[in-house]
């Protein structure tokens, strides 16, 4: 099983008990109709069970139809800009047959919402969607039962529209949800399968809906963690080492104390200054004299790949079939290549931020986080408080992409608040953000593959080092194949990376898809045929064939053998259950190696699409963001020292890079909804690599494909 697609990052959080027992909880909730349900990928639940960790309780999400008829859904998920606040509300409204604007989403607050492991991995819609719909269907059934009693009719005679239940043949007989819930206190636990609305009856799902939070965001009213204020609040700046692994040998904070109004906190490894003015805090920090002992440098940008291969742990077989020796024997041409990928930062525009308040034995932390519940556990253990005394509230979060899962800033703010007795806000500087980022890991992929005389792939021997297995499995029809994963972003191998690494939008898959699809393109060129035709010859997977054809139609793909000089690229990919095909057109300046991406077409099959407008936005975001890691983004470092301090050296995509983007969503109304926040990013490396090759004949095997690397690869 590809467990790393499903298992946690490195959370130590499983098994945390919910703050209240179910009875206490229901008492607090007040009146109305409440449906408790549980959300989770069956694989995760199974994995937890195997580790002897049962789910905290028998539900982890709930919805309520209040006595005023308003519908609230309480979930531990967080809105990060991916639009779930809209898509979940949409699903709920549709199933319950209420207007979208009576639905409130209460998200991530650890006191109000049931336990959740975190918002990442495109899992929200995939695993939350179906049970949420089932719960809504259950609620509708309860309400119809109540209405049947109220209207003296049989449930089968009743219909619902916009929150009003009416008698099918006697329309004047009707009653609203609000009238039905008044004075009621009904709680049900969702068991088994509820009868879901048929996709053909959907009224809201599948229709474009604009972001529900946009109004607050265009007027500056939306509050992010750094925008919150508490009386007496102080801003913190924290002493940081010059390199990961550096040891503090001496420190003199007397200079900082001279900055008027400064409080200096020294507590073990945590040395910080607090001030009511953030600029004065920065000034005070500058006055601290610290000596550090830096560790011996072993790795740098150049030798890291050899190092990783050397320290790689034993590999796991992701999938295999046939016999590799046999495959090699029947191959006419065998191609062996190595693909490299550097470290990439999350670089959200909002840096890690938290505000903490500790009063007596209670702590409240507002934090920019994708994982409020794990943070709650961390804060409780660091402050020595019972978990029920810690509350985490995630306000709006300024982007995550997997980068806001470790919560170091939340723990720092909590410790400083406790030590100082004042509310404390920690906002990382951009340099701190680059230093403590959990980068997408540098990785190596080695592929040996062969084709026979009829351009059929006969051998596929694939090994990925340190990226992880997600997206490593090929989807071609190959008789003799093996895919291995050595080391993973999820399980840290000691002595591998000189700093933190972690999940980055579609973890592992960007690296894997770059390597696999580049290799397929190389083999198509060796076979002397068009890369689309080559794929179709080697594919049986219907969904992949369908997206490739859809993209080709939109793009106007004309078959040609690469390099054709046109600058056309193609790649296919799979992620989070979603299928993708990308086509791109680029222009390469032969002299400078500069690439201009002119056009990208992407076809995506994501099963039932809940919010096509949202899906398209996510696809455009993925495509544009993917240009960064494909062409420019690369962390510069030596040992544990990070040289990138700001966006001047670490370049991310900007307006002038944006190509014309055309997206196609293949909506499969009968299929289950699949992930949409990440998939469309995975093909960007390979599609651009091929377009560069097609333009000028330069085959680049390392991302990012910088002008220097392109020039070096020029024929």
């Amino acid at each position, binding site marked *: 099983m590809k467990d790393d697609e499903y298992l946690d990052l490195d959370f130590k959080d499983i098994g945390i008990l919910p703050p209240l027992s179910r009875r206490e909880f229901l008492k607090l909730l007040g009146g109305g109709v409440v449906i408790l349900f549980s959300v989770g990928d069956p694989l995760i639940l199974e994995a937890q069970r195997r580790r002897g960790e049962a789910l905290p309780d028998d539900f982890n999400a709930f919805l309520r139809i209040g006595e005023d008829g308003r519908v609230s859904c309480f979930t531990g998920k967080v809105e990060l800009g991916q639009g779930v606040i809209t898509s979940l509300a949409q699903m709920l409204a549709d199933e319950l047959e209420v207007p979208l604007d009576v639905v409130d989403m209460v998200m991530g607050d650890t006191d109000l919402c049931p336990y959740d492991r975190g918002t990442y991995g495109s899992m929200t819609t995939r695993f939350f969607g179906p049970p949420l719909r089932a719960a809504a269907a259950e609620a509708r059934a309860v309400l119809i039962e109540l209405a049947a009693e109220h209207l003296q009719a049989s449930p089968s005679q009743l219909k619902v529209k916009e929150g009003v239940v009416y008698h099918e043949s006697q329309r004047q007989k009707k009653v609203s949800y609000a009238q039905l819930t008044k004075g009621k206190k009904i709680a049900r636990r969702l068991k088994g399968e509820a009868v879901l609305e048929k996709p053909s009856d959907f009224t809201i799902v599948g229709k474009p809906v604009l972001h529900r939070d946009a109004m607050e965001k265009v007027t500056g009213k939306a509050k992010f963690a750094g925008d919150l204020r508490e009386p007496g609040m102080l801003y913190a700046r924290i002493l940081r080492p010059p390199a990961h692994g550096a040891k503090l040998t001496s420190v003199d904070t007397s200079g900082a104390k001279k900055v008027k109004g400064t409080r200096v906190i020294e507590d073990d490894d945590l040395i910080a200054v607090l001030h009511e003015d953030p600029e004065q805090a920065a000034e005070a920090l500058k006055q601290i004299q610290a000596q550090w002992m830096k560790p011996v440098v072993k790795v740098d940008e150049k030798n890291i790949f050899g190092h990783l291969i050397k320290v790689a742990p034993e590999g796991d077989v992701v999938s295999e079939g046939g016999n590799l020796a046999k495959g090699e024997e029947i191959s006419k041409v065998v191609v062996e290549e190595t693909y490299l990928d550097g470290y990439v930062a999350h670089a959200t525009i*909002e840096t890690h931020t938290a505000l903490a308040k500790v009063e007596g034995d209670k702590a409240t932390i507002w934090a920019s986080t994708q994982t409020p519940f794990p943070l709650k556990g961390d804060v409780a253990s660091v402050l020595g408080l019972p978990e029920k005394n810690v509350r985490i509230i995630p306000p709006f979060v300024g982007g995550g992409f997997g980068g806001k899962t470790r919560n170091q800033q939340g723990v720092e703010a909590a410790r400083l608040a406790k030590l100082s007795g004042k509310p404390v806000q920690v906002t990382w500087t951009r340099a701190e953000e680059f230093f403590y980022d959990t980068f997408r890991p540098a990785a190596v992929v080695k592929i040996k593959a062969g084709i026979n005389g009829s351009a059929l792939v006969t051998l596929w021997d694939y090994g990925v080092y340190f990226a992880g297995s997600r997206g490593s499995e090929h989807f071609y029809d190959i008789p003799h194949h093996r895919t291995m994963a050595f080391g993973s972003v999820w399980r840290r191998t000691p002595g591998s990376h000189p700093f933190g690494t972690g999940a980055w939008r579609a973890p592992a898959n960007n690296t894997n898809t770059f390597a696999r699809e580049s290799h397929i393109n190389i083999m198509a060129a060796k076979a002397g045929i068009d890369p689309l035709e080559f794929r179709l010859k080697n594919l049986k997977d219907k969904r992949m064939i369908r997206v490739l054809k859809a993209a080709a139609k939109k793009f106007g793909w004309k078959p040609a053998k690469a390099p054709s000089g046109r600058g056309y690229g193609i790649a296919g990919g799979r992620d989070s259950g979603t299928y993708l095909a990308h086509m791109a057109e680029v222009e390469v300046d032969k002299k400078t190696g500069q690439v201009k991406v002119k056009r990208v077409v992407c076809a995506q099959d994501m099963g039932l699409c809940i919010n096509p407008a949202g899906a398209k*936005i996510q696809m455009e975001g993925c495509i544009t*963001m993917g240009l960064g890691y494909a062409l420019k983004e690369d962390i510069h470092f030596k040992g544990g020292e990070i040289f990138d301090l700001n966006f001047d050296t670490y370049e991310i995509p900007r307006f002038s890079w944006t190509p014309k983007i055309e997206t196609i969503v293949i909506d499969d109304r009968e299929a289950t909804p699949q992930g949409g926040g990440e998939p469309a990013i995975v093909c960007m490396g390979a599609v651009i690599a091929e377009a560069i090759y097609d333009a000028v004949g330069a085959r680049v095997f390392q991302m990012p494909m910088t002008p220097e690397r392109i020039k070096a690869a020029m024929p």
Partner: protein
Amino acid sequence: MSKTIRFKLNGQAKSLTVDRERMLLWVLRTDFGLTGTKFGCGEGCCGACTVLVNNEAVRSCQLPVKDVDGKKVTTIEGLAKNGDLHPLQKAFIKHDALQCGYCTPGMILNAYDLLIKNSRPTLKEIKDGMDENLCRCASYQRIVQAIQDAAREMRGGR
């Protein structure tokens, strides 16, 4: 050095006795509680902190507060007039030109400056004029559409 600085902030006269060298960004966010102006990089690289000074887009993380003495400062909170959203704000909503929304105030104010100087910008002029404002959620394509739409609206639909 503390000094009294007088300026118009979102249409209201303000006077403030502060260290003249403090950056406008932090004065807005801490002294005035106007948190719509965001911190993103602190070094002029991202544009999240963009405000208007005498109707020109300026990076407030790089602007000492003394430089706004006697001038007119507009932040995102001051863009809507009497509860009516500015055409740019409306267009950002209509085109879904945001995801996490963190870069949005800076984007809108930078676009405001662009459209004041050039009421009929070409696609290239929009991309060039906006190029120093970063959006990690990469809503660029939508932002461009929103700006084009707002420009049309501000020209009175022509």
